[in-house]
């Protein structure tokens, strides 16, 4: 087919998937008389059919491959430098325990089941046997959670979450997981932490998100800490980010939190976020060189409020002299 072929541009549109219906009809009609165009149309249809035939991979196989990738990258990181926090693998650990110490595993499993059953009975008044089972399943699942990856894969989706504080360390939880649940439980229970996590990351409203963060600030938990860091870095609302940053004061001298604060110092465009991060880092005696490096020379020069705060942090006023 030479460049002058009148239907070349229509064929190009067809192959690119941008042809209009009218042009498509015109091209079809032309193909009944033109062998060259008919052959290209035929190839186009055969390739479309081939693309549609690609078999979807089995989900278990994908999960297995993903696990292998994560294991390899973790091993690589461990070999390359300081150990990244490991995500405990509940099922593989339990299987290993069964193989190595079956008696101990039996006792541990029985203890876990007893705790789950009694915790369910103590903290709620289920309306029916099915509801009791549902809550036990939610509590059991919450007890297994170790990292944010499990949060993303959680079989239960929590909506309309709200958390209210009650005396003596109790929390009133209210949420929907296929049915609405209201219950009171201790703030350190796995379920309380699970619900808080959902309230922070998938909030029903700004108010519930803020409330959950305030409560989280009183509980030490690695997953809640991760959730607060994610919120501090990525939440679109400045108010929520500020609140997450304040809540992280719960984890002073924690390397990961300090790194997260330095990231905020470096990446967040809001001066209020930077000032608050500076205050927290200052209270934790993070070195001025580290802070200055995270801020960058430009921020120090261009923002008088930040320069003033950094200068105030430097008791010997060395930085003030430099700028």
């Amino acid at each position, binding site marked *: 087919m030479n460049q002058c072929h009148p239907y070349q541009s229509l064929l190009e549109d067809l192959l690119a998937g941008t042809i209009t219906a009218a042009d498509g009809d015109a091209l079809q009609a032309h193909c009944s008389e033109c062998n060259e165009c008919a052959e290209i149309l035929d190839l186009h249809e055969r390739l479309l059919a*081939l693309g549609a035939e*690609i078999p979807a*991979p089995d989900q278990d196989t*994908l999960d297995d491959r*993903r696990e292998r990738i994560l294991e390899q*990258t973790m091993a690589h990181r461990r070999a390359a430098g300081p150990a990244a926090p490991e995500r405990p693998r509940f099922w593989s650990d339990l299987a290993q325990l069964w193989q190595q110490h079956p008696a101990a595993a039996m006792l541990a499993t029985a203890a876990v089941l007893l705790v789950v059953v009694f915790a369910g009975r103590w903290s709620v008044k289920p309306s029916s046997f099915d509801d009791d089972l549902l809550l036990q399943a939610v509590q059991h699942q919450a007890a297994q959670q170790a990292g944010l990856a499990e*949060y*993303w894969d959680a079989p239960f989706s929590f909506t309309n979450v709200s958390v209210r504080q009650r005396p003596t360390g109790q929390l009133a939880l209210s949420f929907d997981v296929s049915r609405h649940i209201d219950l009171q439980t201790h703030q350190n229970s796995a379920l309380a932490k699970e619900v808080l996590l959902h309230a922070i*990351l998938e909030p029903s409203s700004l108010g519930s998100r803020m409330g959950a963060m305030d409560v989280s600030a009183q509980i030490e938990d690695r997953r809640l800490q991760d959730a607060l860091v994610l919120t501090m870095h990525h939440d679109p609302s400045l108010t929520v980010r500020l609140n997450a940053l304040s809540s992280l004061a719960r984890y002073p001298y924690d390397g990961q939190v300090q790194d997260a604060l330095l990231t905020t110092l470096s990446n967040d465009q809001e001066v209020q976020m930077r000032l608050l991060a500076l205050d927290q880092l200052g209270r934790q005696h993070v070195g001025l060189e580290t802070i200055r490096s995270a801020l960058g020379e430009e921020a120090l020069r261009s923002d008088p409020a930040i320069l003033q705060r950094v200068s105030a942090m430097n008791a010997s006023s060395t930085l003030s002299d430099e700028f």
Partner: protein
Amino acid sequence: MHFSDHDLIDEILAGSHAAFERLIKRHEEHVYRIGYSYARQVEGALDISQNVFLKVHDRLGSYDRRSAFRTWLTRVAQNESVNWLRSQQRHTGHEELTPGNMPSYQPVQESAVLHQENKRLLLDEVHRLNPRQSQALTLRYFENMALREIAAVLGCSENQVKSILFRGMQKLRQRLPHQNHWDQELES
């Protein structure tokens, strides 16, 4: 809360495995389909996907974010697929198909076998095109990518992609016997 690819990358670079797992889940099917279009078998496609994500993890620091992450990932996946194909040819001693050693199109009794063979030949020919034509056709037909996305992966304009697709099809038409020829063989 929605995390963009770039949000997740920030977290991965800060040491989060959960974020990397999330990123893999988001894109694994896309990468698998690219791998499958080259490997033409599930195990091969999964091997390619695994290698792609390991490379992505290693090289994430060098991703400059000027293009969308999916665009960058697609390039990595296509390069890895081509490397995988080459390594398979080395291991199995496959000769690259040339006009001289192409199998002849003899009619066979089993129409299903012939049909499969025709598909295999078509895919072989797609991968024998020059790299840009082969990439463009793979992304268009096996990844169902939009013209704009293909242009981003190839680093050219949308009009150039149209032209690349068209020229690739013309080459395929010249190299492959037309379907009618096979249909006639099936009928005879």
